[in-house]
């Protein structure tokens, strides 16, 4: 009897250990307007968590506070706590550069640096001068293969990255993020400026990559979330409406607002 009672409790403990990021009572203001309102949620390890919601709901602000790239936004103030691997990242003394090598980020618009394709992949790697030529080549190859770009660019690694198509540029941006070996990858609507075929390529890549990385994916495209998400977080007007496994939230959401959104993409909040 005692063993049976213990089992569910153990599984609860295991579950909390699997949560790589926990957000507690997060509130964000920009000047006088409140962008996020008491967000509490947790992100499981090695799964794809999609943050969905109408535009202007605070999805981007939420994901951008996880690697504190929001810090530079003028007039922003943050309350609450974000815990990554058991450590609070809101501590003033935290090494931001170190944090961002553990939590990588890919932005909405592909942004390659005016350098060669190879240099772009290696851009975030520290102490690049100490690495041998062969090693640099291997790093470039490994990460470009991971984003299925290797075949397309292997013969022209020294060409300017700007010569690639937008879809290829975005995959290069992901390769660049993978090269710094993060644990978590944040993607802020990474496919919204791409054509549907490039978008599908990136979706397939995410499903492949989740074995090694925890992926947090912001999208306003509900179909996309349905295709790739293990977990969904639904945000509307700065408030967390519901979070949970994607299968449950899509089939029988507990909240009527979630139901309206996942069926009609309509939200009244």
């Amino acid at each position, binding site marked *: 009897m005692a063993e049976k009672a213990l089992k569910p409790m153990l599984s609860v403990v295991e579950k909390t250990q699997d949560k790589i990021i926990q957000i507690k009572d997060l509130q964000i203001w920009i000047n006088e307007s409140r962008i996020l309102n008491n967000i509490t949620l947790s992100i499981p390890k090695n799964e794809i968590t999609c943050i969905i919601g109408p535009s202007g709901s605070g999805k981007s602000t939420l994901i951008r506070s996880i*690697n504190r*790239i929001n810090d*530079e936004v*003028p007039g922003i103030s943050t309350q609450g706590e974000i815990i990554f691997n058991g450590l609070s990242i809101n501590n003033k003394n935290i090494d*931001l*550069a*170190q944090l*961002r*090598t553990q939590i*990588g*980020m890919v*932005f909405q*618009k592909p*942004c390659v*640096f*005016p350098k060669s394709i190879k240099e772009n992949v290696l*851009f*975030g790697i*520290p102490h690049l001068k100490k690495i041998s030529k062969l090693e640099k080549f291997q790093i470039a190859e490994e990460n470009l293969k991971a984003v299925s770009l290797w075949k397309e660019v292997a013969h022209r690694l020294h060409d300017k990255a*700007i010569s690639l198509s937008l879809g290829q540029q975005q995959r290069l*941006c992901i390769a*660049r*993020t993978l090269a*710094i070996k993060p644990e978590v990858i944040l993607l802020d609507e990474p496919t919204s400026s791409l054509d549907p075929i490039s978008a599908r390529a990136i979706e397939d890549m995410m499903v492949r990559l989740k074995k090694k990385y925890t992926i947090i994916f912001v999208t306003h495209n509900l179909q996309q979330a349905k295709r790739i998400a293990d977990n969904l977080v639904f945000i509307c007007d700065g408030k967390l409406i519901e979070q949970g496994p994607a299968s449950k939230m899509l089939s029988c959401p507990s909240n009527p607002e979630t139901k309206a959104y996942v069926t009609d993409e309509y939200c009244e909040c």
Partner: protein
Amino acid sequence: MNRNMKNRLFYISIGLAVTICSLILLFLFGIIIWNGLPAISLDFLTNSSTNFGADGGIVYQIFGSILLILFAALICLPIALGTAIYKSEYLKNEILHKILNTLIYSLNGIPSIIFGIFGLIFFVNLLNMGISWIVGSIILSIMILPTVTLSTYQAINSIPTVYRESSSALGLNKWQVIVQVLLPQGFHGAVTGLLIGIARAIGETAPIMFIATAFSGVELPSSFLEPVSTLPTHILALAQQATNPVALQNAWGASLVLVMLVIIFSISALFIRLRHQSISKS
């Protein structure tokens, strides 16, 4: 008058404005080339001047002018870069931004003769540096500082935020973002501003005439604290001897050389700007 007439009248008047504007420039160039070209010869460009500048060539004047602006550029560049980076990347306070802007524009508005007097009182007399070309370079660098600072600031500030965020998100510190991402992309602005600045500085007479130059008997300086001779001050000296036809012709020749130098700097600035525009558009 019906609308069609008004339309034509408007078109004619703006056409006239453009014509006047172009004609003035062409007229000026025409006169300088017409009068200056006969004076130009290899001897004129490679010999030193004699008879208090009335005879001989202008090689030391060309050298002096280029030396002054070269060091002015070298002194100005780091200060302008630093100010531009601070203003663009670190200064968040709106009020301080406005104060800094006002200061930069005021510095730009100060008449050049005031710089000359300041140089004379502060560097030549108070610091006892004497009449020396390095004082001239320092004063010219202060004069072009606003142009170079603003041009660099605009180039750095117009780089989209996503570049700053993408590089910070890869774990780069702020100074790494500035050195590795912003400066390489914004450096053309500094160079453009520098070329426009020195195109202006090389023709300045008032700020350097009593602090950095001597009108005759000057050769290559052997230290920082010696006077040089420059093109604009040479032209000034020759123009004062207008009764001597040889001196006058040399003045026209020196003017032509000065104008050519200014044009070279301005056109290089234009090319750098155009080249960068085509890069950022592609």
